[in-house]
């Protein structure tokens, strides 16, 4: 056994790129342990724990990259280093932002502002430990902030948002992946036509589902504002939701506000909703059992689909029949499916979509186990013979690999694994399109769907979240999954209903009114 540690000084790589290097090394036969990471105090501690000696990284600091390997031989180490360097440093197409600029990129927000003094929004996706600092600097410079970073302490969030509210600025996040301001998508977002409905959402895929449905159903979107999952909690108190609703109420283009969230703290919700000041609001509070006490002019809904339907209704427009033909399609599937296949598996890339699926499935099927359980006692590991719904965007599945929306590899592994389970009837896949997502997810996922459902295997129920204007193209993606034999639904909620209907061999359930 031998170890090696190499330093690339003054080389910062984003964590996903570090992870691609780590993965490349661990795939080399004979590598026992490997990591490519920045030489932060915490990472150096990890190295020490792995038996590396501090003399190997003398003088290294947080902006030096190390490649550390423990492997069977010098040969193995050489192979692993080559693999890591190829994965991390090989030129990648389309990575250079801006138009053909040859000057050195800005090293700080301050530098960037000197070059582009009219900047008005900062998109921040640095590691959580440093995110609040960058966000504060952006607020000080008068910018609105989309804070994609996770792992920002709640106290830091509260301080940031209270400051933003005082300043009349937005801090969208932390953990906010989606926004659309001034007609430009930020983060993971879908391309929509302009329209009169604004979306304010606690989480990313909830916002994406709402904006996509509004576009596909012909209404269009004025703005999309992300809040971060904790904004409407008692501890944070909804400062950004308040700020957003007040701004949208004053916005000429916005006629209705669609608020998307898990059930919020009731007092916070009441206070926040009153900020809409007479502008109609549909509150899509996923999984809400009984209505909240809300101000006049606020309509409540319990799924993403019904929220958008209510928005259309409030504007005097007809909503499409989201269940059209679905029961017949489920009936075909049920006829082909072996009798012992009775379980549902949700393999989600979108957290809000997973949450909504858990709500819907558990109403139809009883207990559904999850890494993000909605009721006590349904966490992992799940007992044999239970239904399972996983949020693959959570940390335990993204350690060492990119998010499943960006790279389907991890999901394909699980898809194959579940395809081999003789008791599984239906597997739900959400396929998210738009900016930030994989350029052609169907090309990776659809062939696997076709393979596993052949010869009496489980059926894949797919929901494609997106719009025709998305770079991937909505119709083409849907067609690829249809052609692969998947059941393709009109909304995320319908995918859960269809899967439950297949599991219970009760096709009519797919048309259940939501």
């Amino acid at each position, binding site marked *: 056994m031998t170890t090696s540690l190499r330093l690339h000084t003054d080389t910062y790589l984003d964590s996903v790129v570090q992870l691609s290097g780590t993965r490349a090394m661990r795939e080399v036969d004979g590598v026992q342990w490997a990591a490519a990471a920045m030489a932060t105090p915490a990472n150096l501690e990890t190295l020490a724990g792995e038996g590396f000696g501090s003399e190997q990284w003398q003088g290294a600091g947080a902006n030096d990259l190390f490649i550390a390997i423990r492997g069977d031989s010098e040969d193995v180490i050489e192979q692993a280093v080559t693999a890591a360097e190829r994965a991390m440093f090989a030129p990648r197409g389309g990575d250079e932002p801006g138009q053909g600029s040859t000057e050195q990129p800005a090293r700080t927000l301050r530098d960037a502002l000197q070059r*582009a003094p009219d900047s008005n929004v900062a998109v921040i996706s640095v590691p959580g430990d440093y995110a609040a600092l960058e966000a504060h600097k952006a607020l000080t410079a008068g910018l609105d902030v989309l804070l994609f970073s996770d792992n920002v302490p709640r106290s830091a969030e509260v301080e940031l948002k209270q400051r933003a509210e005082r300043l009349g600025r937005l801090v969208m996040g932390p953990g906010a992946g989606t926004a659309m301001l001034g007609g430009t998508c930020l983060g993971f977002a879908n391309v929509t036509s302009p329209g009169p409905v604004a979306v304010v959402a606690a989480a990313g895929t909830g916002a994406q589902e709402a904006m996509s449905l509004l576009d596909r159903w012909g209404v269009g979107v004025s703005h999309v504002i992300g809040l971060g999952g904790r904004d409407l909690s008692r501890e944070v108190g909804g400062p950004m939701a308040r700020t957003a609703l*007040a701004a949208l109420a004053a916005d000429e283009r916005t006629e209705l506000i669609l608020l998307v969230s898990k059930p919020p703290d009731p007092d916070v919700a009441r206070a926040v909703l009153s900020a809409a000041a007479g502008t109609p609001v549909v509150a899509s509070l996923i999984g809400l059992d009984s209505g909240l006490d809300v101000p006049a002019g606020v309509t409540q809904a319990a799924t993403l689909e019904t929220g958008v339907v209510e928005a259309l209704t409030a504007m005097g427009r007809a909503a499409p029949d989201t269940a059209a033909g679905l029961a017949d399609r489920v009936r075909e599937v049920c006829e082909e499916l072996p009798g012992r296949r009775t379980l549902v598996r949700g393999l989600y890339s979108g957290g809000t979509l997973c949450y909504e699926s858990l709500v819907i499935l558990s109403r139809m099927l009883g207990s559904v186990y999850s890494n993000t359980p909605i009721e006590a006692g349904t966490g992992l590991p799940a007992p044999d013979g239970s239904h399972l719904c996983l949020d693959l965007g959570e940390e335990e599945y993204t350690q060492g690999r990119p998010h499943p929306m960006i790279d389907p590899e991890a999901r394909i592994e699980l898809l194959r694994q579940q395809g081999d389970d003789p008791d599984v009837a239906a597997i739900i896949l959400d396929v998210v399109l738009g900016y930030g997502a994989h350029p052609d997810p169907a090309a990776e996922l659809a062939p696997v769907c076709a393979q596993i459902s052949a010869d009496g295997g489980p059926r894949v129920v797919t929901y494609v979240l997106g719009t025709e204007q998305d770079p991937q193209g909505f119709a083409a993606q849907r067609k690829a999954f249809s052609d692969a034999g998947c059941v393709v639904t009109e909304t995320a909620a319908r995918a859960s209903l269809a899967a439950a209907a297949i599991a219970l061999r009760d096709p009519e359930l797919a048309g259940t009114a939501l």
Partner: protein
Amino acid sequence: MPGQLALPERVDVINIGLPMFADAVAAQGSPVQQVDWRIPAGGDTSLVAALARLYGTAADEVDAANAEVLRRLDQGVPWLVGVARADEVVPGMDGNTLLHCGPAIEWPQVCDPLRRSMGAAVVAEGWAADTAQAHRLLESGTVGLAPANHHDTVVPMASAIGPSAPVWVVDCPDGGTRAFAPISQGPGEVPWFGRDTDAAIERLRFLRDVAGPALRQVVDQAGSLDILGLAAQGVAMGDDLHMRTQATTNLLIRNWLPHLAELPAPSRTELARFLSGNHLFFLTLAMGAARSLTAWAGQVPGSSIVTTMSRNGTTFGIRLPGSDAWYVTDAPPVADALYYSGYGPDDAAPDIGDSAVLELVGLGGPAAGGSPAVAAFLGGTMADGAAATEGFRQICASRSSRFTLPPLGFSGTPLGVDVRQVVELGVTPTVNTGILHARSGAGQVGAGVATAPLACFVDALLELARAR
């Protein structure tokens, strides 16, 4: 009272983190700047928290204080108003004390070159017959020590001055501040290079008995001099005013020429000989001017702009405005050094002197990009000088409107070292400086670049954040 958010009509994005988000914005045709981000403050969480406070909730107060500090550093006009014996003008200069460079220090910790310089000063004052006796007086405390900075005075390299030393008197009327600096000792066997030979002691007597009185007459006759106005012309002519003061020195002598001519013999010729061999003559004038500005700027509380930066060969210290507190750490070695033949790193004393006050007002390192001589020293091309200026640009809050650099598009030199930027980036000021022999009294043995130690900037930042 919450502010009202106005939703933007269009977005112009700065992306900090994953490049894919910038790509997506660019693909939609909106402007975007990608930041090539680095982990701040070496990833130290307590420093990141302090930075978040000072760039965040406390930013308005700090930025307001900084704006005033920067205004004073940039807009104050220091005037040379006279030459006098230190004990005539320097406040608190009592009869048996030497003023020395750098933070406060006790005799046992004083480095060899500064000990020699102190000994020479004691002999020149007439307090001791020779340097051995002088050292005994210093060791016993009979002759006391005080940092020149505590007496509105700045002294270069390993300088120590006694009550009889002649000093420049510099007034900044905008702020009502007055500062002092000794007359440059010139090259050769001189105490400020850590020499204590008879010739070195004789130089101090010459300054006191000949150069001081003669220059006093010249300044009295020539009238007040706008020191930095002259320096600004010198910067445009390739001076950085720290390593090279050639152009400005020549301008000064030209200005004074009629009054020099009127001096009585023999001091006229003796002073002329001294001036003609002293290419760093303007250095201490620039330092005194800088000190009068930092004295004014240093009265603003709550700022993150450094207003004292100074070394005594043993320790390195900085101060922030509004407080007398020093943040002190070990003096750094002088790196990237060029040594005179026969000398090497083993012979080098650590960085020393108060001259780094120049780097705080936009001279020295910040002006390197305009100085062919400094660029040649740093590596040989003008790009090396520009890189030194760029290093300060990263850590300075503003630009000088007084000093501009022709090779860099007449841009103002970086002004106002901000501890927030220093700690965030882990980049400290660099000072181009001479290297003195650590032990032998051989004087200057080379020159190099001293990089300020980060620790004292970290301490200053934490204290500033704690006070918010």
